[in-house]
């Protein structure tokens, strides 16, 4: 086969290495008390998949309810709880930890040639915090849910709802600390644990992207924590910091909340961008076009990400001078994303491209993220923001970025590194089908929502005027397809654990250090600490290595 780069070992003789991080110790406790970043990544992978499907089921309920203009499937307060829980589960329990806590956890130490993350116990603690937050969210759901929306808008969340705001707030607080510890661990690891020769500009772009995202996690999340603490205090003992009847300003909550929650969208998307840099390089056999520009654009997004939060409040009564400053800075933060997209596109130029599943997801990412990013400019420009904000346009925009972007990247990454994580290949044909189904389903679900938003349909509506029905029917139909697209990978990936082909060390012929060791890796990752003597994405070095091996064997 000349149209693929997959090079697998001879299946009749190949075996999964006997000693690897999974086989080293057995028993549940060896997993629950592990300090191994790879095992923690697997634990994270299982738990976020669980919460993804809970969030997905809630999304299904939302789409079903919106099939008809009346609120007939559920009462409006149930609907409110469903979309609130959908938001909280998807954002805090899926998107924020998705790529960093699974793929990042697994591969950052391997990519920079370290034995583990700098703080393995903190890493495990962060997973337990995540699970604690998750259990609290489940508890909230069991005991009646919460209907503040994931934004906890005051004074609605402090004085006007009787649902479980406190337990949800605690859950978000705890999950936030899980995210802080993950980010902190990454920063320390990237600074202090790099192998000899691994200079900053030899690191894979995946690591750069995670470094940028980690800065946001460490500096942004605590502000959300304090905002939630103040909401909890206001609910319980009635302090008046956000209460307009006591002289507090509800807008202050918005400032504190969005100070985290805007950078949070970069926390969610940057690691996805890191995945795309890896896959696009590997499947076009080419160094990423403009490595430095892509690396610095990640950092630029992280830095500028802190200056733009008030664009969520343009119509909420911030001063017009603030509007000018924040709108301008929002336009600036859009530029690094544009740079990345074009650099990826030009990575294909004069490459030698193959179209395995991760590459299909990557193409999906590039198309959908471009749409998601460009529609973000509609909202960053204050004039059009007036009309489009708080409508389905917003919903479509952030789903294009988060689901079309981040989830596509996550799936690209999972497929790309699956052979490394498990030692076995996923089935290629059905996974390509899943990628195509996902892409079609996604567009059918969310593209009509741009039109709905432009027509003025407000978000978070359980019922809506009947003329919006047709587009909503399209959207619900798309969601069904999308659901199939997301279920397929779970099925065949689990299947491949036992029946997949043996992958060998480097099925994609990729250049990263993680591919130069056995699959699944040893607990210490490398037999001996590697010495980095070449640039990142150096395919000529890889060819030379292969020739050397052949020569030594021959």
């Amino acid at each position, binding site marked *: 086969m000349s149209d693929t780069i997959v090079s697998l070992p001879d299946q009749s003789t190949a075996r999964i290495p006997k000693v690897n991080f999974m086989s080293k110790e057995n028993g549940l406790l060896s997993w629950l008390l592990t300090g191994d970043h790879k095992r923690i990544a697997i634990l994270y992978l299982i738990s976020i998949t669980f919460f993804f499907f809970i969030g997905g089921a809630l999304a299904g309920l939302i789409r079903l309810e919106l099939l008809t203009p009346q609120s007939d499937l559920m009462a409006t307060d149930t609907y409110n709880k469903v979309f609130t829980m959908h938001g909280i589960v998807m954002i805090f329990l899926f998107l924020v930890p998705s790529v960093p806590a699974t793929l990042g956890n697994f591969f950052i130490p391997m990519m920079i040639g370290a034995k583990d993350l700098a703080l393995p116990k903190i890493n495990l603690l962060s997973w337990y915090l995540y699970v604690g937050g998750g259990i609290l969210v489940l508890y909230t759901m069991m005991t009646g849910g919460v209907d503040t929306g994931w934004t906890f808008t005051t004074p609605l969340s402090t004085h006007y709802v009787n649902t479980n705001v406190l337990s949800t707030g605690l859950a978000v607080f705890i999950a936030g600390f899980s995210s802080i510890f993950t980010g902190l661990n990454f920063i320390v690891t990237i600074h202090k644990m790099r192998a000899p020769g691994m200079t900053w500009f030899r690191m894979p772009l995946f690591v750069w992207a995670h470094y940028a995202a980690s800065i946001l996690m460490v500096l942004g999340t605590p502000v959300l924590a304090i905002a939630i603490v103040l909401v909890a205090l206001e609910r319980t003992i009635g302090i008046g910091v956000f209460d307009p009847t006591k002289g507090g300003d509800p807008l202050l909550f918005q400032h504190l909340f969005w100070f985290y929650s805007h950078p949070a969208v970069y926390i969610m998307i940057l690691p996805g961008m890191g995945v795309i840099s890896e896959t696009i390089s590997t499947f076009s056999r080419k160094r990423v076009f403009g490595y430095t*520009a892509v690396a610095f654009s990640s950092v630029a997004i992280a830095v500028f990400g802190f200056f733009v939060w008030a664009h969520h409040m343009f119509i909420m009564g911030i001063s017009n001078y603030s509007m000018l400053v924040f709108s301008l800075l929002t336009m*600036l933060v859009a530029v690094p994303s544009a740079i990345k997209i074009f650099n990826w596109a030009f990575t294909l130029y004069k490459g030698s491209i193959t179209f395995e599943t991760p590459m299909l997801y990557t193409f999906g990412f590039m198309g959908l993220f471009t749409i998601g990013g460009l529609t973000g400019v509609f909202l960053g420009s204050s004039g059009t923001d007036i009309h489009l904000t708080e409508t389905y346009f917003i919903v479509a925009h952030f789903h294009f970025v988060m689901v079309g972007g981040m989830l596509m990247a996550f799936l690209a990454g999972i497929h790309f590194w699956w052979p490394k994580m498990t030692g076995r290949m996923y089935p290629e044909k059905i996974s390509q089908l899943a990628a195509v189904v996902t892409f079609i389903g996604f567009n059918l679900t969310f593209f009509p929502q741009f039109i709905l938003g432009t027509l003025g349909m407000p978000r978070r509506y359980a019922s809506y005027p009947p*003329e919006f029905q047709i587009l909503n029917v399209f959207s619900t139909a798309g969601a069904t397809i999308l659901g199939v697209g997301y279920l397929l990978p779970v099925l065949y990936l689990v299947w491949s654990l036992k029946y997949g082909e043996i992958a060998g060390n480097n099925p994609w012929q990729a250049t990263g250090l993680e591919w130069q060791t056995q699959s699944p890796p040893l607990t210490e990752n490398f037999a001996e600490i590697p010495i980095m003597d070449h640039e990142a994405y150096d395919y000529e070095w890889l060819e030379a290595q292969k020739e050397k091996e052949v020569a030594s064997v021959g």
Partner: protein
Amino acid sequence: MSHISPIIWQFLVKWMTNFALFPPEASKIAPQMDALYFFMVLVSLIGLTIVILLVISFSLLYSKKRHPVAVQIEGSTLLEATWTIIPLGLFLMMFVWGSLIYFRVYTPPANAMNIYVVGKQWMWKIEHPGGQHEINALHVPTGRAVQLTIISQDVFHSFSIPAFRVKREAIPGRYTTVWFEATTPGTYHLFCTQYCGTEHSHMIGDVVVMTPEDFNRWLTSSTSGASLAQNGEKLFASLSCAACHNTRPDARGPSLANVYGAKLPLSSGGTVLADDAFLREAILNPSQHITQGYAPIMPTYQGQVSEEGVIALVEYIKNLNSDYRVQQTTNTTELLPESEGKAAAAGQKPAGTKPAQGMVKQ
């Protein structure tokens, strides 16, 4: 088409006949905003097309079959500069254009007709200066600038009229404004777009745009007797405001005639423009807005006057061109039945607030 089931067929027909990409343009600002919107759509389509074309053509040209060995290219400063500067330029253009529209939407002209909007869970209460009340409906004439002064009584709401392309948050404890000039008679949607609790999706209504003649007819037919300013006058009397705010030489408070729109010197130094927001603040938090030469003795009316009451008072003070009426109220305060003024507007605490809130326990 017999193999398509009738339901899907009907559905498609319905879709084709109702299909719209954007809402009707029924205000003066709408075409301007749509111009920017379509400019952005155009730029996005071009950008997207470029990305898709690049990806597809490179995929075809450089697939492994056709191009088995990749050529390693480091990058190109010139190309990277191109796709940094061109998007930056376009984005900055959208920023300037957008800001111009933003300022236009939120800067009402001086001669605009003012309508008050109070949002509460879960309805819109509209108060026309003539005393006409509406719930979840707004009647406006064409060809006349209409300014909305919006406030919320409880949580954040958002007053949105897609056909006019305007939207403004209703904030508890603070007036916000937006204005529009309707152009096409008809009935349009009015939405609350900020999530505000259980019945959020039922906080919708109609905006009825009428010709000026129809509108005048509607105004006269739906008047409730007293104008907003008259209600305010009653309230002004029942709260004994005129006891201090009068023209007597020993008056303890400043006279309020023609105070609206004036620049007032403050005792803390500086001046302040007496607009709607200032009048509201001066009633609820008087000690923060002491006019120069007066002692901070005015009591607060927080918790005693509802938002509608404050609106009536503000409207009354706005229209106060001479002290004659004030003198009248001073003299007639005792004559007014105790209940009338209070029942008219002096209100209860906002619904849904916990009872102890804002109460003073001494």
